[in-house]
């Protein structure tokens, strides 16, 4: 790994917007020595065969991610506790469901 670090450029995550107003979606990653060349490499790897609207590149090490160990405490939706869901609550008589 140490050797790898010396021979590879930094990693950048690539987010792509396919049309105006659409969300930027993560498409993959590229290596590049700096931000401008990361944009160019992303263009060359991802934008060649499809018309895109916008591309973001983000240094991979700027992303703070959860770890596998975090999964239980982070992501247990606790759906055994019925009162966490809106459908648990009865709508009182007289409340109109018509919101239009």
């Amino acid at each position, binding site marked *: 790994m140490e050797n790898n670090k010396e021979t*590879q*450029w930094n990693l950048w995550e690539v987010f792509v917007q396919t049309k105006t107003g659409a969300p930027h979606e993560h498409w993959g990653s*590229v*290596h*590049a*020595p*700096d931000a*401008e*060349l990361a944009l*160019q*490499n992303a*263009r*060359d*790897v991802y934008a*060649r065969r499809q018309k895109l609207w916008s591309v973001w590149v983000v240094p991979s090490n700027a992303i703070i991610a959860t770890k596998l160990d975090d999964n239980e405490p982070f992501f247990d939706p606790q759906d055994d506790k019925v009162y966490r869901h809106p459908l648990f609550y009865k709508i009182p008589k007289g409340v109109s469901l018509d919101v239009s």
Partner: protein
Amino acid sequence: MSANLFNYLLKLGDDRVVMGQRMAEWCGVGPILEEDVALTNLCLDFIGQGVSLLGKAGEIEGLGRNEDSLAFFRDDMEYKNTLLVEQPNGDFAQTIAKLFFFSTFDIIFLNELTKSKDEYLTAFAIKSLKEAKYHFRHSSNWFLRLGDGTEESNTRLQNAIDNLWLFTDELFDMDEADLELVNLGIAVDLNIVKAQWLEKMNEFFTLSKVKPTNPDCFMIKGGRKGIHTEHLGKMLAEMQILPRTYPDAQW
């Protein structure tokens, strides 16, 4: 007039076919995966432009030759590209220097060509200018980074410039046939392009901390007349062997 235009299209087309083939030589051996992809993308742009120009040349010649017959069944002495583009890729610095010299020429040249009175050339210029702008962006960025980078990258770029500089002036050569087309408003006056090109070069030489050791050196020419350096024949041999061995080969 149509003979002049045929020759003009050949010159433009051959520059692009040879640039494209040279970039293709990086396929699979680029310094890093992403740059490998970048250089072969440029290759496809140049080949696409070459296909268009040689196809049009064949049409104007009217002897039944198409882009494939012009690319694969002419010998080096019939090729009209400049000596600059046929020079070997060398190291990455030399590839970048060549690409930078050519793509800077290209954005200025194509911008002028959009004003041509020939409808085909105008359309070609508008379409290709978009590609050339990216070629310039990529090559000029690398030119700056190599020149103003480490001692080794600076030395390599400096050597590349000195290897290639003496071939650059041929980009701006015009013969009598070209001048007739310039007077008709069809071809580009390359004197205008040259002035802008030199200005751009000086700007980037300052920024990149490199410059030709001998800017006023003797300029070597000949490619436009079919007199090439030894490198073109070898390149064409590799490029042409398949269609010449199997003339009816299909993808």
